[in-house]
Each structure stands twice: as structure tokens, then as C-alpha cells.
């Protein structure tokens, strides 16, 4: 969706809130995938995604097009919700260990019988290298997690990350550089 299309959609939504459905259809998948790659847990991702879109739905009328686009705004809400999730001690990334230990490889089942959660877990377990990075990423401070995941999981540019996180481009570059070193050290220590 281009910037002009997003502007037009915003006008349509402000005219009739039912048009929020178009925004939902366009951005649910990328936002859900972003959350899923950050937390690597189906249930939590679903909760965070629903919370993200509920907040967007409730606040869309007060959204004014200043510097960031709707998509960056959605990523910003999702990032804040993920941060909130990680700040809750009970949700600290222990679940990933459990996930790795209960690998689906040993339990081949017909696809018809697999629930969505099982399918998602299966997809996750197909990416061992990603899981290793994701697991170590969650050990870092949230400020590093944000920039690294947006840069390397979502393939966002520095400018886009700067918009989403409301940080200066220089700050993002600096966080990326330090984050990479910390992540590499964490992986090296673990292996």
C-alpha cells in the first residue's frame, strides 16, 4: 500500500469506522508475523496482535498524519505491546525452551488434525537458526531487541525503524551496532 493509498484509507476510516476492516485485512498478516517472530509463541502472538489492533481501532480517529504512516504507527503499537509483554516477568522467554524441547519433528500427524497453533509451532521449528537468534535476542535489553528484530526479521530500513520507534536515525544505527555485538556475544557464550 502506497503512502497516498494509506492517506486515502485513513480518510475513509474517519468517515466510516467500518472501513477499518480494509486496514485490518492489509496489515494483520505482517503485524502478526512481526509479533510472532519477536515472541515465538502462538498464543502470546495472538493476544498481542488482538490487543494491537484493538488499540489501533479505538485510537484511529485521533491519529493524525504528521510524520509517520499508518503502517509505522501499527508497528509502533505492536512494539509497545511486545515490550509490555516482556516486562511481565511471568512471560519471560522460558516458553521458547519448552518449545524447543517439545519439537514437533517426532510427532508427525496428518495436517487435517493439526490445529493452527500446532501448524505455527511446526513452522517455527523449521527455522532452527532463527530460533537460536531469537532465543538469544530475548536476553538483550528491549531497546536492542526492537531495532535488531525490525532490521533483520522484518527487513526494515534505518529510516523506517526510526519512524516506528520514534528515534533519531543516528540512535538507531548506534543501537544496531551495539546490539549486534551483544547478540553475537550472547550466541557465542551459549554455544
Amino acid at each position, binding site marked *: 500500500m502506497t503512502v497516498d493509498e494509506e492517506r486515502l484509507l485513513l480518510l475513509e476510516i474517519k468517515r466510516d469506522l*467500518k472501513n*477499518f*476492516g480494509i486496514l*485490518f*485485512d492489509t496489515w*494483520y*498478516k505482517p503485524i*502478526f*508475523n512481526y509479533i*510472532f*517472530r519477536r515472541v515465538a509463541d502462538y498464543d502470546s502472538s*495472538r493476544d498481542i*496482535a*488482538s490487543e494491537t*489492533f*484493538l488499540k489501533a*481501532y479505538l485510537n484511529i480517529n485521533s491519529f493524525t498524519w504528521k510524520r509517520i504512516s499508518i503502517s509505522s504507527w501499527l508497528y509502533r503499537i505492536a512494539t509497545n505491546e511486545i515490550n509490555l509483554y516482556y516486562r511481565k516477568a511471568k512471560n519471560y522467554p522460558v516458553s521458547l525452551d519448552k518449545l524447543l524441547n517439545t519439537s514437533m519433528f517426532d510427532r508427525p500427524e496428518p495436517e487435517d488434525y493439526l*490445529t*493452527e497453533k500446532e*501448524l*505455527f509451532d511446526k*513452522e*517455527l521449528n*523449521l*527455522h532452527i*537458526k*532463527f530460533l537460536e*537468534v531469537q532465543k538469544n535476542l530475548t536476553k538483550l535489553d528491549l531497546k536492542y531487541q526492537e531495532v*535488531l528484530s525490525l*532490521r*533483520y*526479521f522484518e527487513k526494515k530500513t534505518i529510516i523506517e525503524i526510526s519512524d516506528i520507534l520514534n528515534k533519531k536515525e543516528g540512535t538507531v544505527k548506534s543501537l544496531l551496532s551495539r546490539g*549486534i*555485538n551483544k*547478540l*553475537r556475544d550472547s*550466541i*557465542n557464550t551459549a554455544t
Partner: protein
Amino acid sequence: MKEDKFEKHLEDLDVPQINDIRHQQILKFTLLNSRKSSQIGLAFIVIPCLFLFMQFIKEWSGLDFHFFSAIEAFMSHLDKIPVLKWIFPIVLMGLPIVTIIINSLSIVHFHWDKISKELLISLKFKLFNIILILISIIIVLVFLFYLVHENIYEQILRSLD
């Protein structure tokens, strides 16, 4: 691993990508209708609330609005017509019950976990829906108390006399 190699490793990282998200449409439906349940609920309890409020004013402060007396007279009149006598019980009790049901359904989520054989019930904290449910429960209880008092208690007293 060296810094530049590690950065390359991150850039080439194959990440999981979910394309078939089945719960998306369910969530969309719930989200776009989340306000409807509370709006409908509010509309359903306006009349019972007004009725109770005016009754309260009349009983406790002695103020009697002609408008309210006219409604009471109208209700008594409808009560004598067999087909129409159900209108006010439906409006005063039925609609708050419907409000309780639709608002409860919008905030409560049931999930049956086949593996652990557990029914998981989660409650979404939506203040407006919860307030509507509580008000509706109070309305239903007040009218239930009124019905019990009018029909059973009064009959017992009459039979004792």
C-alpha cells in the same frame, strides 16, 4: 563469529513466515463488532433504567411526574389485554437479560484444550461492557424482587388473611 560475518548471517537469516492465518477473520469480526454489543446493550437498558429511576424518585422523594403516572396507567391498561400484556415484562426484564448475554459473549472467550482436556475461560477487561452487564443484572434483580413480592408474597399474605 566475526562482526561482519555475523551481520551477514543476520541479514541472510531465514525467518518463519505465516501466510495462512485462520483466526484473522474471527478476530476481525469480533473487533469490528466490539462496539455494537455495548451500543445495543445501552439502547436496551435505557427504558428499564428510566422506569426504575422515576419509580425511585416517586417512592423516596414523593415527587410525582404526570408523565410517569401516565405510563403507569398505560401499563395497567395493556396488562388487561392478553396479547399485549407481555410487552412491558419483555422491555423491562427481557431486554436487560439480552444485554447481559450479548455483552458477556463479547468479553468472555471459551477454549477447549483437547490435549489437556481443559476448558479455558478468559475474560477481556472492557469496562463499558462490564458496567452494562452489572447495571442489567441490577435491573433484572430489582424486577425479579418486585415480581416475587407482588405475586408470591402478596398471595401468601392474602391467603393468611
